[in-house]
Each structure stands twice: as C-alpha cells, then as structure tokens.
C-alpha cells in the first residue's frame, strides 16, 4: 500500500478490529414509540416545537423548527400521533426537550422508490435552503450542516476531506456506508463541490479499506466530475479526529490545511435531503460489542430506543458491563436501553468486562503510559495532579486547553484514573 500516513507523537494501538462481515444494510423495524430529542448535540439549544400533543403527523413532517444558529429542524421519523411533549430538565440540570410519537397510520417514505431530484439545476442558495429545511446535521458533532456551510462563505479554495476513518475496534458504519452507497456519497460530494466551489476533495481511508473499492470510487468520482485525492491513514487512535487528520495532512507542520471535514454518514444524509427530498430522520447505526449476539449495521429511524436495535441483533449473550453510544473511547454511556437514536448516533455497543478492562481507580504510579499515549505531547499525569489540587491555572500553563479530550491517556492509564473526565471538569471550571 502506498504511502500510509500518520501523526507524529503519541496515540495508541487498539486491539485488532473485530471481524465483521456485513451483508446489505437493512432497515430496522419502526419503533412503536419514537422519542425525538430536540436539543442540539453540539450546543444543547432547543428548536421551537411546531406540533401539539394528540396531533397526527406524517412521516417526515416538520415537528420542531430551527430557532436561530445552533438549532436544527426536526421531523417526525414515523407516521403517528404526537403522544407527549416534554420540555424539562435532565438530572444534571441541563434542559432537554423531547417529542414522543406513537406509530400509527400509513407510511409514505418507506417502501416507496426514492425520488430523484435533478439537483443539478438547483443553484447554491436553493441547495442551502434544502439543507436547512431537511434538518441535516453533521453526524459526528450534531452541528447544523447549514450553519457550517453558511459560516464557510468566502473561504477561498477550501479543502474538503471526506473522513471515512474509524479507529476503534468496533465501529464500522462509515466504511460500510461508503462501500454500500458510494454512488450517493460521490453525488453528495458533487453537491458540496457546487456549494464550496472547491476543486479537489480528499478522501481519508483507513489502511484496510479494500484497494479494489478505491478504484471504483475514483471511477464514480470521474463520472460525477469531482476530483478525488485518496489518502490512506495508519490505524492508530485517535487518527480519526479532524485535528489529527489536519495535522497529518499538513505533514505535522502545525498549519491548518483542511477547511471542512465530513463523514460518509453525513454525506448520505445530505444526498438524501437534496436528491431524494428526505429529511434527516434516519441514521446508520452499528450495533456491536462482546455482549451482542450478532454485530450488524441497521438503518434506524431517529427516536428508536437502542434496546429495540439490540433486540433486533439477537439480544445480549451475557450481561453487558456498560452500554456505549458511539465510539468506545469518546462516546457516552447509556444509563438504560430507552435512550433513543439521535442524529449523532453512529454506533451502540454493549461491552463486557473482558473488553473494557475496567478496574478500581488507584493512585497514579507514574508509569508514564499516559505520556506515551497523548498525541498533543502533554503530561496527563501532571495535569491530573493539578486537577486533584484544584490548580486550574497551573494546569492551563501546562497545556490543559490543548487537550482534545481524545481519551488516549485514560485508555492507557494503569491506575484507571478518569483523566479525561477530570480534565473536562477542569476546563469548564476554568472557563466559568
């Protein structure tokens, strides 16, 4: 393989990837009750609710309207009745609003052949309008894609990277989507080309991405008149983070070279919005982990409880120690199986103790594993010392704010010190 790139310092080699053979990606069953979370995953802000309890909604009907920057349109993922609208607070005090819709009525999107708009006749403003209208979110962060593209106006010759990297041992959704929907993804790149006016698009692939598929990808790109530049990356966590892709592509020079990075799942949503007139009401979700009977990728409606998806994958073979939403190094834990799929849900994992290697926290033994792991060249053990002593200023002097919360240090820590959690607390303390 020619020229596999990587960043320079730190990083961790995770255990071999879990073998995963997937057939064509199937649709998950529609949930009986879909719980749509209205808070943006990136800003926490809520969109304006546009329905009332008891109202009948069609599939894809607008149920909450964006309310300024940092919010998104939300659409009903299933046809049904608005059962409950909650505008409340989480246990930790953060605001959370949800709309619960009970399945009823007929389907309009499912089973119908997807529409194909001749989007090439649309101009830039029209496309931007559709992106906003359909509530397309950047799957990796939950930001409004419209906001992102809007903010990029005036960037001359922006460099776009299609990021299909996943560095943990589990998640395979992005690669699978790129393989299964390559024509659509390439189309979405062409749409983006129109918006960004950019000539070259970089495709970031892992070292194990099949070489034969690269050729067909390049073929499709040529037909769609986009120019793809393929870059291979070494499998080394956290290479998939935008900041490290940027650093790697800039040859570790420290100069930003990438202006926009999106993943295949976001591109699929963009394609569906512009070409198939579909709102962002579906997510590709990888269901896996040692406690799951059969790993698979399902196309699930937003609002589907993750328990349903686990059940559809054959249920649990044993008691999972922890349920994780998204990748196991940065993802959040799910307190129970009622947690619903959101626009940012790419994976749900039921992990066993054999996989997590969790243990009781012990004092730092100065083993230095964290220093070797940190891609930012920080000394996590020293930062932890300041965190324990409440010395935010000292920690800031030693690079606290350069920490990207990648979790490599806490993964490696012999004493299982929740380093990242502590750093995040300290960062928010320092800012307030």
């Amino acid at each position, binding site marked *: 393989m020619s020229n596999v790139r990587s960043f320079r*310092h*730190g990083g*961790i080699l*995770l255990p071999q990837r879990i073998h995963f053979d997937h057939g064509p990606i199937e649709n998950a069953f529609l949930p009986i009750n879909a719980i749509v979370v209205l808070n943006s995953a990136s800003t926490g802000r809520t969109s304006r609710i546009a329905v009332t309890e008891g109202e009948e909604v069609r599939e894809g009907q607008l149920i909450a309207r964006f309310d300024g920057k940092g919010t998104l349109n939300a659409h009903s993922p299933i046809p049904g009745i608005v059962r409950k609208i909650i505008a409340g607070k989480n246990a930790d005090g953060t605001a959370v609003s949800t709309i619960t819709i009970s399945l009823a009525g007929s389907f309009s999107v499912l089973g119908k052949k997807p529409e194909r708009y001749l989007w090439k006749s649309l101009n830039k403003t029209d496309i931007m309008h559709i992106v906003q209208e359909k509530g397309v979110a950047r799957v990796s962060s939950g930001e409004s894609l419209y906001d992102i593209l809007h903010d990029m106006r005036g960037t001359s010759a922006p460099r776009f990277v299609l990021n299909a990297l996943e560095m943990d*041992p589990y998640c395979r959704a992005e690669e699978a989507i790129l393989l299964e929907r390559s024509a659509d993804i390439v189309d979405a790149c062409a749409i983006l080309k129109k918006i960004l006016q950019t000539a070259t698009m970089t495709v970031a692939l892992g070292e194990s991405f099949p070489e034969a598929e690269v050729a067909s990808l390049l073929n499709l790109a040529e037909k769609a008149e986009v120019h793809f530049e393929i870059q291979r990356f070494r499998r080394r966590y956290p290479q998939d983070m935008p*900041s490290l892709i*940027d*650093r790697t592509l*800039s040859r*570790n*020079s*420290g100069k*930003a070279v990438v202006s926009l990075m999106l993943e295949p799942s976001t591109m699929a949503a963009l394609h569906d919005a512009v070409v198939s007139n579909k709102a962002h009401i579906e997510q590709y979700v990888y269901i896996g982990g040692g406690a799951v009977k059969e790993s698979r990728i399902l196309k699930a409606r937003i609002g589907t409880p993750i*328990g349903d998806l686990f*059940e559809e994958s054959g249920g649990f073979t044993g008691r999972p*120690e*922890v*349920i994780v939403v998204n990748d*196991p*190094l*940065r*993802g*959040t*834990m*799910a*307190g*129970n*199986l*009622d947690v619903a799929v959101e626009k940012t849900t790419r994976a749900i*994992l039921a992990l066993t103790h054999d996989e*997590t*290697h*969790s*243990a009781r926290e*012990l*004092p*730092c*033994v*100065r*083993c*230095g*594993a964290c*220093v070797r792991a*940190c*891609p*930012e*060249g*920080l*000394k996590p053990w020293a930062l932890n010392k300041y965190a324990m002593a409440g010395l935010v200023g000292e920690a800031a002097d030693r*690079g606290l704010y*350069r920490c990207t919360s990648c*979790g490599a240090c*806490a*993964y490696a*820590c*012999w004493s*299982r010190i*929740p380093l*990242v*959690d502590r750093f995040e607390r300290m960062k928010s303390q320092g800012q307030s």
Partner: protein
Amino acid sequence: MMYTQKEFPDTHAPHLHDWRSTSKVVWICSLVLLPVVVWSIALYRWAAITVWLSSVASALLTQLVVDGLFKRFTLRDGTALLTGLLVASAMPPAISPFIPAAASAFAILVVKTLFGGLGGNWMNPSLAGIAFAYANWPVAMREYVLPTVLAGVDGLSSSTPLAFAHGLAGSGQARVMDAIRQAGYPLSGMDESLTGFLNDSIFSHLGARLPEGYIDLAVGFKSGALGESALFAVILASIILLALRLVKYEIPLAILGSFAILAGIFGTGLPGEFIMGGDVLYALSGGGLILAAFFMATDPVSSPVDRKIATIYGLAIGVLCFVFRRWGNHTEGIAYAILIMNVLTPTLERRLEPLLGPKPARTSV
C-alpha cells in the same frame, strides 16, 4: 422490552482500557517470581522457606494492620505481597526469620505508608527494607550458606562467590573461576558435564570455550541470597516483564549496560582481571544485580516518568553500582545505588524535564 428498567452504572469515557492495570502488573511481577521461590526452596529447603514465609507474612500483616487503621483494604492490589517477596529475595538463606520480617514491616510501615501509600513513596519500599536490614544486622546479612543439595547438609556456611573472589584478588590465577576452584570452592557434577557438553557441541565450533562454573552460577549451585540462587529463573522473569512491556526497558538495559562496560574495562576487583579484561559475565551474575535492575529499579513510582530521563537514571545506577562493587566490596551495592537514584529522581526530573520531556505537538489553533 425486557431490559427497560435495568440501569447501568455511571462510567466515563473512555470505556475501553489497556489490559495493563496497576494491580495486574504488580500481580504479574509477583507471579513471575514464583519459579525463583520454588527453585530456592529446592536448593535450600527449610533455610529458604522460613525466610520467604516470614518476609511475606510480615509484609501482608503489616499492610493489613495499616489498612485497618485507615479503614480500607489494599491487599488485593498486590503491592504488599511483592514487597515481601522482593525483601526476601535479598536475604541470605538460613538467616533468622526475624530479620526479613522486620525489614518487610519497615518497608511497608515506614517507607510505603508514612510516605503516603501507593504512589506516594519516593523510595522503593523493598529496597529501603533491604537497606534497613543491612544497616541493622550487617553481620547476619553477610552470612551465607551453601545450598543443601550441594553441601549435603543444611546450613553449611560459606561466603558468596563474589565475596570469596574478592578475597582472592591477586592470587595469580588466570580466571576468577579457576581461583575459586583452587581455593576449594565446590563445583557441581552437573556443571562439569553440562559445560563439557556445551563446549563440545556448540562452543568448540565457535572456537570458544565456556569455563566451568558459570552454569553453577546460573542455577544457584553456590552460596548467595535467595533471589540470586535462581539466576536463570530471574532472567526468564525479566524477559516476561520486557515482553509484556510492564517495565521501561531503558532502565535495566542502562543499568546492566553501563555496569557491564565499566566492569569490562576496569574489572570488579576479581582475580585474573586486567584493564579491558574484566570478567563481565561473572560480575553481572552476582550480587542480585539482574533481579534488582528489573524488579526494583523499574518501580515506576520511584523512577523517572520520562523514558529519556529514565535512561539517565539507569546509567547512573549502573555507574554507582560499579563504584560500590569495585571499591566498596559491597555485594549489596546495587541496593544503595538504586536508593540513591530514587532519592535523586525528583531533582533529575526537575532539571532535565525542560530539555528532554515531551514536546507539545504543533497545532493549528
């Protein structure tokens, strides 16, 4: 939904961890020492059993009492057991069980607990315990016996080959081994036949000859501390630690490297040595050097975090150990060498960190 009500405990990202954990590492270190324990018991019978038992039991008991006072339970992290094992490894067999017990108790109570428990001690507890024993019972700590299997009786006293050889310096023998032999130090039949076999089958083809006696050194057919008695098992255990990457390999390699080079150039005061002609193999195999280099100097708590600084730390230990061995006639030189560098580690880190420490990555923000 069957699982709806089931709650999962609060955890933080990352949800995956490296398999190495502090207590696992400590347990593995103890486990790989097991063959050393077994071998020394095979060699010395009761003379070894009493030492291992008293040291380990005292370490565990002391920890238990301390834990009771602090209302916690830390025995399962394995550090007390390892401390007990390491203290015992430096003891001569047949020593009064009171001494290893006192050394272990001192290690746990004074060095580990008073300095702030696991992670707080800036000195390796087991080494401090060993030094404590040398300081308080200098005579008993230097009274060695021959292995029961070699002498035929329990507790036939003898000085270690290292001390023995030092006494023979200047005896005009060409090789340290020959000098020892000349002076009536026993050689096992196994060594003679195995060395002969190796010489016939391997070394003769290489144009070399392995002198008699080294096999005896490796398998412990000589007098020495318990940990020295199974050099081959110690080497095996060290290889496991390296392979599993549980120790910073820079430290033992720097220690053994610098020590070997100095010993090679200047000799360690053995008969038959001359400048550039020191008996390196002999020097390395004695004095518990390898055990201490891999198991005690690498204690992460009391050694530098940064690998480059750890290398310097290791080199310094090697040099100090050589100095003690060459001119001090201390078999226990390695213990003092490591302890001195333990104490100097914070200074070393403070001075060298700005030069050698991790460099922040260049970022675009």
